[in-house]
């Protein structure tokens, strides 16, 4: 059976796209393979590790476990869309650097996106809330202390971040 491709209209990092894709394309495959956004990491592929976390509308989701066609008409933000256009890092990115919150860096984009979604909803979470909301992002090298500190530092800024 020849499967008909479907049209997907989606905004990614502020840019509108109209693409013809196979229905079985996951959001992860779309972002990496069709749009070249390789900051979205492919790892466990079974909805566990959180390395592929992106933001759909205001929600952090695991891109490996969402069909691309399900984000039709929605807005997706990946780590490539975090820094401002002039190259200035997002406060979370800067804090991750300042606190050396990564080692190999593979889980970092997913962590940044989870942290951004959390702070957009709740600008000043306490440590317990940070730990609970970051549960869906695994790290297999540097551990879990520095990036909690980094997020905490951003969360403690009075003005919050956008």
């Amino acid at each position, binding site marked *: 059976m020849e499967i008909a491709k479907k049209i997907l209209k989606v905004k990614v990092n502020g840019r509108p796209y109209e693409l013809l894709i196979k229905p*079985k394309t996951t959001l992860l495959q779309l972002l990496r393979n069709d749009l070249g956004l390789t900051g979205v990491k492919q790892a466990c592929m079974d909805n566990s590790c959180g390395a592929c976390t992106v933001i759909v509308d205001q929600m952090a989701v*695991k891109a490996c476990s969402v069909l691309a066609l399900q984000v039709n008409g929605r807005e997706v933000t990946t780590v490539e869309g975090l820094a401002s256009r002039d190259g200035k890092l997002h406060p979370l990115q800067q804090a991750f650097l300042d606190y050396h919150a990564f080692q190999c860096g593979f889980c970092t984009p997913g962590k940044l996106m989870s942290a951004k979604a959390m702070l957009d909803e709740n600008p000043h979470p306490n440590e317990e809330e940070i730990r609970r909301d970051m549960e869906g992002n695994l790290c297999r090298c540097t551990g879990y202390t520095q990036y909690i500190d980094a997020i905490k530092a951003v969360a403690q800024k009075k003005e919050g971040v956008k």
Partner: protein
Amino acid sequence: MRDFEYLPTKTIQEACSLISQYKDEGKVLAGGQSLITLLRQKLISPSYLIDIKGVSELDYLTFDEKKGLRMGALTTHRAIEKSSLIQSKYPVLSEMEKSVASVQTRNWGTIGGNLCSGDPIGDPAPSLIALNAKLKIVSSREEKTIPLEEFFTDYFTTILEPDEILTEIQLPPPVAYTGVVYMKFSTIEAGIKIVSTSTSMILASDKQTCKDARIVMSAVAPVPFNAKKAGELLIGKKINDDLIAEAAQLASEETNPTSDVHASAEFRREIAKVLVRRAVKEAFEKAKRT
């Protein structure tokens, strides 16, 4: 993942008509937080995927003092967790939802999809069974309402016919002198649960005698497990520590756990006993305070 035709729907009627047309060849997709993995692992390979996530009429939470709670099947886990209505009327649901998978999964995954996946390790089903939930199931043939408890038949298997869709979860209104408790045991905080229980108790107006008790557990049987004998032991009696210990022992004996990499069956049984004892005691204390 094998190829499939993708059929997005906007209404229940449209979804029912498509699923009755394709039956065994089709599969309903909601949030896909279990389904996408099953498709990728080729454990299922439907020819048609009927996407109902866009059916906005199935995303709602309403409450009526007489009828209780009505929850659309496409309500996300995150919406339940964050709902002030749930937090005030059925706080145990909000508390339980906090430990369902991860924020990312709760943002996209739906309560209906979770129940239909029929995973006995899931926590929503035991909590909803403890709260005496019913399900509304529709097809183009008929519409019916069944107790959630009768929904599950085996590992990852439910009574849903190939042309049926779960549309609503219903909870009776909370009654006076009720305590409901969710407790889990896992070896690491965010890790896989070894056992969890959702336990409810309703007391008579003397605040001593048990009018109704439900002790429901995850991961101890092929389906979300209601330890009926243990619940029945408590009903009609004045609650004390000895009786609670006896019920916990009975509940543990009723379970039928398996051994896997996370825990042996023997360990699960032992943990079930401890958890149930603590949960029944806490449910009793909570019920007294209401």
